[in-house]
């Protein structure tokens, strides 16, 4: 079962939740898809790491063969090619690796070359299998890494996979939740938090994904706009996490709270049970 954990902004507690749920589940897979700034590995400190690079295909031109017909330039809808001063120029960062230009070139002057955009690390933290996607600094898109990550982790099924999503609701998040069986949205108790919750709420609704919300940083006796939002929209609330100083301290030391204190292992066990119950219920009701 694939459970994706997402939020409309960074810092709501996606990694806190994904890491602790995976740690509590024990025999689980944690997949860090926040490839621009993966940090789950800081908590898990995985051992026996295997690394593989991720490359995309970009066109390379043979100037001897190119006649300057510009079929490729006109074809590229991303305008990654230009023909200047009798030479074809390739803008690698703009290229979306569709391969169309190489197929269309009548002179076979274009071929595809690998360009490395990042890497994937695979290791173990106790019985938790940890995958981290790492995008090279300066690269425009992490999607090729996420595709490879999710493809690699297919072999882990039907085990429990906790997918730590990038923040927001853009293409990269859509790619990450594509194969998710259930989505957990993490929300903060502020007006800004509601705005961001609404972004991912609309996304998972659009993708017709079953989902529930975890309310993080809850203050006792204080109004929680995100909770109000869930009640109004009749959204399942999977659990509450308090705005807890000790939890913050443990987290800031890059320790896994559920492995450090009994009360947190109890807290995340309850939460995991709640998530699994909902996810399995959905799997039966809406397979």
């Amino acid at each position, binding site marked *: 079962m694939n459970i994706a954990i997402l939020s409309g902004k960074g810092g709501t507690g996606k990694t806190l939740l994904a890491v602790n749920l995976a740690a509590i589940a024990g025999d689980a897979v944690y997949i860090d898809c926040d490839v*621009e700034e993966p940090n789950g590995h800081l908590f898990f400190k995985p051992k026996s790491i295997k690394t593989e690079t991720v490359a995309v295909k970009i066109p390379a031109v043979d100037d001897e063969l190119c006649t300057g017909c510009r079929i490729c330039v006109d074809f590229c*809808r991303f*305008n990654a090619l*230009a023909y200047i*001063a009798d030479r074809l*120029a390739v803008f690698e960062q703009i290229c979306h690796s569709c391969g169309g230009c190489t197929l269309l070139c009548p002179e076979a002057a274009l071929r595809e070359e690998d360009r490395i955009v990042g890497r994937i690390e695979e290791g173990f933290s106790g019985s938790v299998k940890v995958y981290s996607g790492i995008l090279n600094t300066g690269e*425009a898109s*992490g999607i090729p890494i996420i595709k490879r990550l999710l493809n690699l982790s297919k072999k882990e099924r039907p085990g429990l996979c906790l997918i730590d999503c990038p923040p927001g609701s853009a293409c990269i998040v859509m790619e990450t939740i594509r194969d998710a069986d259930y989505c957990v949205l993490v929300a903060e108790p502020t007006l800004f938090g509601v705005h961001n919750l609404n972004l991912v709420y609309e996304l998972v609704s659009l993708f017709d994904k079953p989902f529930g919300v975890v309310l993080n940083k809850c203050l006792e006796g204080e109004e929680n706009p995100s909770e109000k939002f869930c009640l109004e929209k009749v959204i399942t609330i999977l659990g509450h996490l308090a705005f807890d100083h000790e939890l913050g301290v443990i987290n800031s030391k890059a320790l896994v709270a559920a492995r450090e204190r009994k009360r947190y292992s109890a807290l995340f066990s309850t939460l995991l049970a709640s998530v699994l119950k909902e996810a399995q219920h959905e799997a039966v009701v809406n397979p």
Partner: protein
Amino acid sequence: MKVAVPVDDKNMETSVCMSFGRAPYFMIYDTDTKEHSFLDNSAADSPGGAGIKAAQTIVDHHVDVLLTPRCGENAAGVIKAAGIDLYKTEPQSAIDNINALVIGKLSSLNDIHPGFHSRKGR
């Protein structure tokens, strides 16, 4: 000397467009013959790489100088590779900028920005 300027309208009073890649039109002005024409910028509504495509249009029209308020690095790469000089416009009409260029009152554009490409991560 053939000069190109990204512009908002197709008339001689037009202002300079703040964007190069996504300007609706380009004014092409020949300072020797005083002839002018307007080009539609086919890159204006591109999903991406508008600067590159717009620059390709400028290169294909054998322009000597491009006047623009700003220019992204990809577009600048194309423009410079074609040997076209880049000058920075002043806040005045397109034709006033061209006249300012002729009398040497414009300075070359050096602050090339890294682009406003939509970030995909967020």
